[in-house]
């Protein structure tokens, strides 16, 4: 009944998981210019390490094929088990998620920056409204 001022003022956190540095930087900088806090992970293992440390995340925007012990879909499954309210957007030029995969949205590569930002903002809105993906 009483609004939590800390919750109201906390900026939204987006975890961008992408092994191509230039693409990661372009997406991250565009999101930062819109007032979001962006965490950049170079692969799924880094993204998971950030989670293990208790770092805040509202939306995950992840590539699928990356070096390391997990791909983006493995990461999504692990994160879903950890927090079913987390909004996960998967992007790939080669792999599409299977039906029944618990993700919020899929964005095929190559994508337009505007489309990626719109998908992330929509996911943040869905996160604010609450509910499982």
């Amino acid at each position, binding site marked *: 009944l009483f609004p939590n001022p800390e919750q109201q003022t906390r900026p939204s956190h987006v975890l961008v998981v992408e092994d191509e*540095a*230039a693409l*990661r*930087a372009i997406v*991250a*900088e565009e999101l*930062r210019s819109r007032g979001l*806090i962006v*965490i*950049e*992970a*170079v692969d799924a293992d*880094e*993204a998971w*390490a*950030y989670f*293990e*440390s*208790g*770092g805040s995340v509202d939306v995950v925007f992840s590539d699928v094929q990356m070096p390391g012990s997990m791909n983006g879909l493995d990461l999504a499954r692990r994160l879903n088990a950890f927090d079913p309210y987390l909004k996960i957007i998967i992007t790939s030029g080669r792999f599409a998620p299977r039906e029944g995969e618990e993700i919020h949205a899929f964005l095929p590569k190559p994508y337009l920056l505007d489309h990626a930002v719109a998908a992330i903002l929509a996911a943040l809105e869905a996160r604010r409204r609450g509910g499982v993906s």
Partner: protein
Amino acid sequence: MTEKKPCVLLVEADILVRHPLAEYLRECGYRVLEVNNAAEARALLEREPSAVDVVLAETDGASSGSGFELANWIRRNCAGIDVELAGTVAKAAEKAGDLCEEGPALAKPYDHSLVLDRIRRLMAARERNKPKR
């Protein structure tokens, strides 16, 4: 027209170190590009050499070349870019603090020792939350 922010390329293998340092430098008024290793740094510099003013790199450099090798490569190939090498997390935080002293913002948002405290807390949390093997 908005003034171009000076740009720091931050080369650090651990996301729990890289993200807090990058956020600190952003609060000091820098544009910050984040990469995980020397190979990513070189790829970004080859693509956009004029975008970067300072490189802040760890000396160990994880899997793809040390910070020393990267520094030598930058001196040979990217005239005008300053390179700051840090051998420890504490040194990296100190160098980030130095950059903030001379940075574009009028005042530092907080002391670099607070960044170091935050990094240590995140690393301790990661250790605590790791599944027991």
